């Protein structure tokens, strides 16, 4: 039984799990937030709309991914479905990789749909008011979407790792959200601490503490390059982006490999 069979089975499971309602809810939420945010901007409605829309899908799609990982992997153990699914003639690795790839493909499809709809909405809003600095919905926009996809895959991989060893399925979603919060905010916090005197009492040790995170967690804040699309300038792409993306890809490889290794040794009781 090949990995494709596992993927097609997993797809059927997600359809039966009614995750698509979740996708629809995110879409409605994104469209509503985008249109409303634009109404509050005096000078740059299209930019604010794009900004808020990106924020919504950047936060909701990783949660969707974690929920699907929870459903496809963690629930499998909790509800003892593995008693049936593990009897098929395929290795544990093929099973886990198949489920993982299903989530990645779903995330890619969901992201594409959101990105296309957001693009239409922002174009529509942009026609209503001609702003001095226009948004860039062409090449720059797709760069932003591509970087966001790498970010989502990192979070999905971490969710997969948690799902393999977690004893309660709920830990997958909460762990993924916690990871997302830390990985996306620590670099911004370090940069912003300069302007906030007196916020923390012992700033030096605090900085060193957060600085350590740099070795444990990839800097997902750096993968948020939306300023390129918001202001139409590629200069906002950090010069060291190939290294940052490489770091994220290595982290994906490491967490997925660790998940496979743990899963091969997992003892079901």
């Amino acid at each position, binding site marked *: 039984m090949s990995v494709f069979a596992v993927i097609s089975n997993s797809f059927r499971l997600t359809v039966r799990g009614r995750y698509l309602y979740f996708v629809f809810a995110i879409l409605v939420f994104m469209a509503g937030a985008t249109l409303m*945010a634009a109404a*509050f*901007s*005096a*000078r*740059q*409605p299209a*930019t*604010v709309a794009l*900004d*808020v829309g*990106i*924020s919504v899908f*950047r*936060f909701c799609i990783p949660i969707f991914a974690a929920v699907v990982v929870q459903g496809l992997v963690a629930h499998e153990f909790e509800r003892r479905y593995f008693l049936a699914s593990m009897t098929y003639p395929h290795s544990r690795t093929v099973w886990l990789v198949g489920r993982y790839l299903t989530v990645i493909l779903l995330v890619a499809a969901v992201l594409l749909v959101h990105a296309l709809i957001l693009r239409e909405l922002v174009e529509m809003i942009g026609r209503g*008011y001609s*702003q*001095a*600095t226009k948004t860039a919905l062409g090449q720059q926009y797709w760069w932003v979407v591509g970087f966001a996809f790498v970010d989502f895959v990192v979070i999905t991989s971490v969710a997969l790792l948690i799902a393999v060893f977690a004893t309660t399925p709920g830990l997958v979603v909460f762990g993924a959200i916690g990871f*997302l*919060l*830390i*990985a*996306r*905010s620590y670099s*911004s*916090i370090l940069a*912003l*601490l300069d*302007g*906030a005197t007196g*916020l923390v009492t012992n700033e030096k040790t605090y900085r060193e503490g957060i600085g350590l995170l740099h070795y444990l967690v990839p800097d*997902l*804040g750096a993968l*948020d390059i*939306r*300023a390129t699309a*918001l*202001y139409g*300038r590629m*200069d906002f792409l950090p010069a060291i982006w190939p290294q940052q993306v490489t770091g994220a890809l290595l982290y994906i490889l490491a967490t997925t490999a660790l998940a496979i290794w743990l899963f091969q040794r997992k003892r079901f009781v």
Partner: protein
Amino acid sequence: MKWLGIAAVALLAFILNANWTKGRWQNVAVVFADRVVVSAPVQVVLYGGDRFLAADVEAIRASVTGMDIGTVNLGYLSRAQNVASELNPCHEDNYYTANALLTLAGADRQAVGILERAISCRFWDEMPPFYLGFNQHFFHGNYADAQRNLQLAASRSTIRTTSFTKLAIMIKAESFKNERMALEFLTEEKDKTRDAKLRALLEVRADRIKGLLRLRDAQAIYEARFGKKLENPGQLMENGIIQAFPIDPMKIGYRFKNGEFHLNELAMQ
């Protein structure tokens, strides 16, 4: 049934007790009555590591709740807009309203940081350096910095290069006593905004500057007629050059210092 009765009695007693304690004790002693603005690093975490969204929401909050026709909560606005500017220095609405509301309401020093951050982040935009240069000249008589910023604006502009350069040269020659050109420019900017409330506020600010221009004109007439410096604003009335002093629609007033009329600044910490 017995337990339901006990539950009902206990619930009733609880409600009576709550009614008695209500308003007799306050959990937090309120010493700081002004509005709260959460500092930038904390906001990054609160918004899931998304500094762009945090900046959008803070800017929307400031522009929606920070002003009313003719009055602004300056202390709050200056703190909120500075935090929004730290989170996303490129935010166009934020630097625009900060300049419009803070500067022209007598708190121009609080807007300097926001404009400076916008100048370096929006490296293509001619408006922040123009605003800062205009403020430095108009409010502080800081000709060197004003000229530098206006030349920066001229170098960035595609359609206003000549007018900005002209302004910069006039300032250099210190012969620039005619702020009308700049005022007209501000009026034109005001007409471009979509928000009716903001436009009404800008109208009031423009009237404030017009009052100042009337005073400076009267001074020029006096000095030309009598061939000596004006020492006391009262002389304008005594000699019938003006019938009454212009009334500042913002009720902050004008001041006469070192032989020149200026806008009064509000004292703020």
